[in-house]
């Protein structure tokens, strides 16, 4: 993005000089990043690059050591509860209660998010992620892929302004990856603001609008997805992150 355009863009996620240290070890070193409203950004990086730390800070689960960040216009340091009501979060763990059914999980989280017309919203989301037929089964009886789709339904329950996805494909078989990919592509078409963090270059490439590479706690490259193909992305990734 050039500087002229930057001034006009309404950033839904805005990160400035964000650093995080765990003791003396730096996980993030002065990150600057913006995601415009309705934009789907895929953030690639090897294990240990700092992707999860960045997402957890944006989700208000971790405080930063230095720098600032705003999500949906709210400051992560001062307006944590407000931000939590405006984001949806999916990680490699489903963050669900496996002794409850899918419907009970959605009803529970719906009450926490004060979702109106919870029954209808639950129907809609279960339909979208293809779990209507299993809605009354305990989550512990679900396959990993089904749990992950339900996790996505939970994250979308309150129609969040921003979706934070941290390795959502982790541990899924190819069929489940494809199914999840379809659901995420639907979000991109609906202009949801999405930050997808992954170490796998294949995931999210097609459906994202913009790409970034994070290595050793720094954004080392970012650009429009249309400007390059998969081969070029792999070459860039090898150059900046050392693998791919």
């Amino acid at each position, binding site marked *: 993005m050039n500087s002229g355009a930057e001034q006009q863009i309404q950033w839904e996620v805005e990160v400035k000089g964000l650093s995080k240290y765990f003791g003396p070890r730096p996980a993030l070193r002065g990150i600057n990043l913006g995601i415009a409203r309705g934009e789907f950004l895929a953030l690639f990086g090897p294990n240990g690059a700092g992707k999860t730390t960045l997402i957890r800070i944006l*989700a*208000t*689960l*971790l*405080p930063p050591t230095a720098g600032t960040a705003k999500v949906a216009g709210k400051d992560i340091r001062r307006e944590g*509860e*407000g931000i*939590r*009501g405006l*984001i949806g*979060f999916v*990680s490699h*763990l*489903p*963050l*669900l*209660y*496996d*002794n*409850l059914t899918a419907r*009970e999980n959605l009803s*529970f*989280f719906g*009450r*926490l*998010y*004060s979702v109106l017309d919870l029954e209808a919203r639950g129907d809609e989301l279960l339909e979208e992620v293809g779990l209507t037929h299993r809605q009354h089964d*305990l989550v512990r009886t679900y396959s990993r892929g089904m749990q992950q789709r339900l996790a996505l339904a*939970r994250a979308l329950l309150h129609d969040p302004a921003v979706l934070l996805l941290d390795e959502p494909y982790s541990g899924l078989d190819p069929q489940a990856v494809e199914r999840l990919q379809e659901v995420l592509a639907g979000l991109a078409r609906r202009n949801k603001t999405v930050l997808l963090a992954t170490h796998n270059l294949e995931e999210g490439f097609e459906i994202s609008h913009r790409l970034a590479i994070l290595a050793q706690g720094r954004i080392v490259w970012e650009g429009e997805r249309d400007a390059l193909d998969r081969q070029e992305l792999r070459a860039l990734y090898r150059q900046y992150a050392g693998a791919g």
Partner: protein
Amino acid sequence: MIGFISKVFAILGKDLTAEIRSREILSGMFIFALLVILIFNFAFELQRGELASLAAGVLWVTFAFAGVLGLNRSFVLEKDRGSLEGLLLSPVDRGAIYLAKMLGNLIFILVTEAILVPLFAFVSNLALPLLPLLPVLLLGSLGFSAVGTVFAAMATSTRTREIMLPILLFPVVVPVVIAAVKATEVVFGGRDLSSVADWLRILIAFDVIFTVVSFLTFEYVISE
């Protein structure tokens, strides 16, 4: 305020539903407490006169250790399955999470007591003065879970969480256990509730102070 209370009951309801289905917390607490009571009963073979004074101590030691088992599990189960993170990601005041967890732990302790106290009275051939005993059990258990819930949350993030909880909890909860033992001893001795008024006042004061302090500090305890 209505939203806050509704969220407390949503979390509490979820915890109770999950426990009714899995019985992971209650079964552990109950079996442990039952074994301790049976061992004490066979070990001492007390005479009628001694029984009242020792029974109170035996009961509260049993509840305290069984309570620690339950408290440990209440957060560990959620932490290990990742669902605690789902809870922390929702726009809920951390105080609401504390209150719900504290009430859940209190209910689990009271259920264990409701089964074990009559059982203990039966195997020990001890008269059970139920009415004066109820406020003592309620206030003692409330104080225990008020402090225990916040320390259980604290211990969950440590590597040695099973050891850490009793080390943190017992020094702080000693006044509750002493007051509860003394009040229970008086009640088992056949005296009425007015005789234990001073001990009950101590329990009430402890419960109020530690519930408020724990409620206010829970946000810092549960944050990474």
